[in-house]
């Protein structure tokens, strides 16, 4: 165990790795600052370029860029009232009023310090919990893995933004797409309609780019303007930033509670960062001595959501790495990145690649601190990215995305598969269907079928009759039925 920790952390401090982490952190911040792009888009776009890289380097780049995007997003939330990423939406409630009151630096200092420390705490909790879950996951065989995947799939409905039905349809469509090509264990080609390009199935990279990257790029092209109004002033003096950083230590107990909320919500699959920040914000407001000042520039309203949105990654990583259940759309993309590297997160992962788990944990901690420091130093300069006109940024992104789709297998058919799937991705975006649920279904569909076939071959129809499988089945049923039951009981009381 100690060897794995030492090996995992030693990898991070190699000069080449440090440079890659630094550049990925910078890239993640820029993606966070640009509204519409986020950590998930960063991963989707950069996964193709990490193909063929050393897995430690590849996963470090993706983790660094992803983890720090929410830190970048807080800059636009505070300074221009535009949340850079979804989880920054609660920050602008108090962050922007502080900017309007001439306290932009203080709000920025508080947001970035809370982000950096929140990420640090999330990473530390992840490092502590990984050894704790090891004995449990060692007992997992293929039936248990199958039911874990079913559990992950059961959270599809929770990822539905507009309605549960839309979430379910999205997830099931993703599952259906994962069945294209040769079936695992049968070797029978399905839904290829005579196309030889589809025999190997739809690949993760063209799919992730079509579902997440292309629709955002099209929206940017369609808007035909800059992201923020021209002429907007961005000012944040250093003394004020330092004052904001001290605010986090003045409210250290609130920061700790908000971070704990973030980690806990992150662990629960299917809930996601958007929920964590609002729970943390609500908690801060209800426990504050001055709840009436929330929404009018209370620094507590900045500290709580920013602590939660970075710490949640530690929790989300735990279920992804140890159980192979991606807790969110972004974690599903990360899971896809692991699969492309030939590594499957889940029970066997901690046994075989414990050092990689600690590399990722170390990168998570390092980039959160590094990201906060970079943002504090160059935020007002970086934010000028939002002034780039869409007619300059959009075609550039279109070319990079297309190159990304091609470079995975050097196959032009992947590019056209991506263009074809973009129609679906765009329709889903416009009609409010859940793209994370779709991708979760797509990533887990093939795995579910594979584990089901192995379980059936080795155990027969009674493969679910193992103690751990039964516990997972019961947990799945309870977690799926808990909310509807509570609603039903509440209605009965009324």
């Amino acid at each position, binding site marked *: 165990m100690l060897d794995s920790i030492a090996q995992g952390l030693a990898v991070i401090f190699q000069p080449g790795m440090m440079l890659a982490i630094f550049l990925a952190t910078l890239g993640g911040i820029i993606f966070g600052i640009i509204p519409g792009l986020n950590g998930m888009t960063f991963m989707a776009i950069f996964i193709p370029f990490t193909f063929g890289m050393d897995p430690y380097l590849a996963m470090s780049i993706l983790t660094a860029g992803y983890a720090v995007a929410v830190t970048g997003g807080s800059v636009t939330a505070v300074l221009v009232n535009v949340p850079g990423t979804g989880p920054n939406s609660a920050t602008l409630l108090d962050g922007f009023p502080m900017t309007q009151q001439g306290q932009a630096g203080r709000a920025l200092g508080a947001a970035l310090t809370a982000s950096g420390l929140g990420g640090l705490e999330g990473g530390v909790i992840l490092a502590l919990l990984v050894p704790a879950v090891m004995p449990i996951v060692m007992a997992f065989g293929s039936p248990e893995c199958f039911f874990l995947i079913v559990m992950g799939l059961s959270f599809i409905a929770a990822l539905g933004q507009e309605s549960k039905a839309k979430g379910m*349809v999205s997830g099931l469509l993703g599952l259906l797409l994962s069945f294209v090509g040769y079936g695992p264990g049968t070797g029978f080609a399905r839904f290829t309609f005579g196309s030889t390009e589809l025999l190997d199935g739809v690949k993760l990279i063209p799919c992730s780019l079509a579902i997440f990257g292309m629709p955002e790029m099209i929206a940017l092209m369609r808007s035909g303007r800059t992201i923020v109004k021209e002429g907007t002033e961005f000012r944040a003096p250093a003394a004020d930033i330092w004052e904001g950083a001290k605010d986090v230590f003045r409210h250290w107990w609130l920061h700790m509670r908000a971070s704990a909320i973030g980690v806990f919500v992150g662990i629960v699959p299917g809930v996601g960062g958007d929920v964590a920040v609002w729970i943390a914000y609500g908690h801060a407001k209800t426990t504050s001595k001055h709840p009436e000042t929330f929404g009018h520039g209370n620094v507590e309203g900045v500290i709580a959501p920013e602590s939660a949105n970075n710490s949640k990654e530690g929790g989300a990583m735990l279920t992804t790495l140890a159980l192979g259940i991606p807790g969110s759309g972004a974690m599903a993309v990360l899971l896809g990145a692991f699969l492309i590297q030939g590594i499957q997160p889940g029970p066997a992962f901690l046994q075989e690649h414990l050092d990689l788990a600690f590399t990722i944990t170390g990168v998570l901690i390092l980039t959160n601190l590094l990201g906060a420091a970079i943002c504090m130093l160059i935020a007002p300069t970086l934010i000028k990215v939002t002034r780039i006109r869409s007619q300059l940024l959009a075609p550039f992104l279109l070319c990079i995305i297309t190159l990304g789709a091609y470079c995975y297998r050097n196959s032009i058919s992947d590019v056209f598969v991506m263009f074809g799937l973009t129609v679906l991705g765009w329709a889903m975006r416009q009609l409010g269907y859940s793209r994370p649920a779709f991708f979760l279904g797509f990533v887990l569909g093939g795995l579910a079928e594979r584990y089901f076939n192995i379980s059936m071959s080795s155990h027969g129809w009674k493969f679910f009759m193992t103690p751990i499988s039964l516990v997972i089945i019961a947990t799945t049923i309870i977690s799926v039925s808990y909310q509807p039951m509570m609603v039903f009981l509440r209605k009965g009381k009324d």
Partner: protein
Amino acid sequence: MRGKDLFFLVLLLAVLITGFVVAVDYPPRARFFPLIVISLCGIIVLGELLKAFLAYRKAGGTGIDRPATAEAPERDQKQQRNIDLLAWIGGFALLIWLLGFIIGMPLFMLAYVKLKGEGWRWAIALSATMFVIVYGGFNLLLNIPLYEGLLFLP
């Protein structure tokens, strides 16, 4: 429910029915999961369609939202923008297919940036940057054999 939602659901139902018909002929193990997923998805889609139909009946035939006539110019403008966008992306795909990455991408950058109202300076600078990225970065540095385009294939 909007007309667009309804259209999407009907289209989805047609895709699911096709998928079901195709999957039924597969061997038992190959069709097991697809049939479950298609059936579940079909039930939800049918349920949503039924809900829309009932809402339509209840509202006396006005349950499907249609944009007001007063918004017609705005709608036309939106439609024009969508057609414009579709043409650009379709044109981009065609350029890549015919001319490949090294010529197609810088050419697209040049045309898009210039025709969207930017000056020649931006158009040339960005297309040159794209050429450096594609040819210098991907082809020479990363040694990736880039697609050369249908017109240049041996």
